[in-house]
């Protein structure tokens, strides 16, 4: 299991367009991806759940990646930001 601590740099936060691009990345991989902001969690492959977290620029989130391809997934998720 990999846990990434990420500070979002996108100036408009993780809104619909970046969330959609993020999902195109995460859906290519079989690992389970959870995004945690505070005490709330979202499935990293579900755009509606990600939008519900309301991740703004400067927010810090944990991204938990668990599965066979977790290393390559983690690299791509890190590159996304």
């Amino acid at each position, binding site marked *: 299991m990999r846990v990434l601590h990420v500070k979002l740099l996108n100036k408009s936060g993780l809104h619909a367009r970046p969330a959609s691009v993020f999902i195109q990345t995460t859906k290519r991989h079989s690992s389970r991806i959870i995004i945690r902001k505070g005490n709330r969690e979202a499935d990293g492959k579900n755009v*509606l759940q990600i939008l519900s977290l309301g991740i703004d620029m400067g927010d810090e989130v944990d991204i938990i990646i668990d599965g066979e391809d977790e290393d390559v997934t983690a690299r791509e998720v890190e590159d996304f930001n």
Partner: protein
Amino acid sequence: MKAMVKVLFKGKPVSQGFAIGKAFILRRSDIFREVDDNCRAIEVEKELEKLWRALSKLREKMFKLRDSATHNQLRDIINAQVTILEAIAGEVEKEIREGLCAESSLKRITLKHYNQISSSGSELIGMRADDVLDVGTQLMSELRGRGPFIPPRRGTSYWLQRIYCLQT
């Protein structure tokens, strides 16, 4: 005798021709109010077929619009809306399999996410709740066999929905 309905739009009259700027379409705002909250699926397979047919029709329209777009930004917006559409349809499919009819489930899922996103704490992302409501409304229109534009009728409320036109 049939009553005549007069609809008056207020605004500045302009000459015919092309214009670049914001555009709006008029759409009924109460489509979800017409749907039962707890309608059960009589035949699950038929409900699923209905959903898939509406999904594929709407997706086709969105792709057509995306492919005709000349700006990458607009194409990205439509791609994001397709992602939202597929996420909504995925959740509706699950609920149909649990016995809810397509329309009730779509209403529930759309309004649930609309409320969650609009109260997410981020003003900017909260505005994206409108995208969810818009996509859900369009899918509902397809499910109910309606086109995207419904002519005005007395006693019905409307909203102006923004569509995306980019300045060149």
